[in-house]
């Protein structure tokens, strides 16, 4: 797809911070917005990730993967925090008779466990392979397929 954040493996000295920022910032925000469902939160997360990256720039051999991982971890933390809020709020009773597919997808994506949501986003938006998704999420490749299957199954049920 070519729109997902790249996974540069250059050494810190091979690519400048400015260059990495120009190349990655928007894509990282786009990905984070899909993971969080909020552009504002995505911007906060990515800005924080870049700040952390800059602080450690001289010590990093592979800043791209560090950035990817930091954004994902911050998104995971944020999702966890929001999950607590959502549980406290409880489910809103009732749904409209007719809902658009996009609304359902948004709703389901938001409620999916983070790993399922991340796997779906990385696969269907980022176009990553199972191995690449596993590397991004720091999990075994065998976990990715079931996560995506469960996520799709949930969506199908919701769309019925």
């Amino acid at each position: 797809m070519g729109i997902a954040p790249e996974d540069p493996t250059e050494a810190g000295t091979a690519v400048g911070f400015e260059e990495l920022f120009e190349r990655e910032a928007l894509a990282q925000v786009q990905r984070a917005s899909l993971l969080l469902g909020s552009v504002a939160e995505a911007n906060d997360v990515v800005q924080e990730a870049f700040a952390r990256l800059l602080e450690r720039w001289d010590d990093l051999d592979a800043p791209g993967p560090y950035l990817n991982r930091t954004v994902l971890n911050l998104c995971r933390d944020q999702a966890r925090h929001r999950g607590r809020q959502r549980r406290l709020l409880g489910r809103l009773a009732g749904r409209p008779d007719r809902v658009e597919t996009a609304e359902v997808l948004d709703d389901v994506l938001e409620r999916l466990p983070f790993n399922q949501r991340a796997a779906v986003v990385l696969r269907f938006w980022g176009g990553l392979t199972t191995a690449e998704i596993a590397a991004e999420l720091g999990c075994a490749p065998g976990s990715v397929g079931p996560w995506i299957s469960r996520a799709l199954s949930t969506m199908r049920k919701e769309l019925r």
Partner: protein
Amino acid sequence: MSTLEDDLTTHLRERAARAELRFDLPDVRLDARPIPRARPRGTARARVAGAVAAAVAVAAVVAVAVVVAGDDATDVVAGPTASEPLSDVVELTIAPDQQSRPERLDAGAAVLMAERVGRIEVGPPGELLLLDLNLPSAVDAGCVATETGHACEFVTEEGVVSTASSAAGGPASAGRLRAGGPFAFVEGKGATAVVVTGLDPTVATVEVAMEVATYRQVPALGTVAVPFEPSVERVIIRGIDRDGQVLWGEHLDIPWNLPLVDGEPPTPTIDRPGTDTAPTG
């Protein structure tokens, strides 16, 4: 590929396309730099420490006041006590490296920091804790509400020392933020601070005097809030450039202690240098 997967791919692409970048490289650089610790200057430092400690004891720690709309909705963070010489009690410093922080607050808060406060928590009124600004080296802090209204808590290691909140709409839309040429200021009955916003980038320092020539200097970085004694009726504000030249000066006659007119404080006047008295707003 199934229909669902097609729909999902299309949906994610559309959603991602709507996400825009709301910060820039300078913001990141600012965030990545350590927060400078605001320190009182020179020999006054010890006295400042004592004054601050005393202020803590009476829960009047925070140096910057937040002015909000409404006679009853004072919601003002406690400032220095009126008996303290302002120039010694509060070395109000806006941490330059935090200038990008306010932009990161959806609520539009402008955060000014000096000492003591270790954390500022900002959220909509009634829903604090949406966002933490960890300011481990900050000591005093203030939070200025702008467009959407929000609440702030200023937290030290010992706990919350002060809170402030603004009604939805904030002082600007409540009609309390008045343009005054090179700056605007927030006024209101019961307020204890002049909040200067919209400063020209050439302004390096804002000096504020309380009726007499006891100017206090604060760095002018977009927004400054300067506390003063509630009894003060005239405040003098001057903008200073980096070479020390006075760019402008204003005398603010603040009707803090005057009766309300139709539920509103009277409009203050500004004596512009070389001009007749002109109304603000």
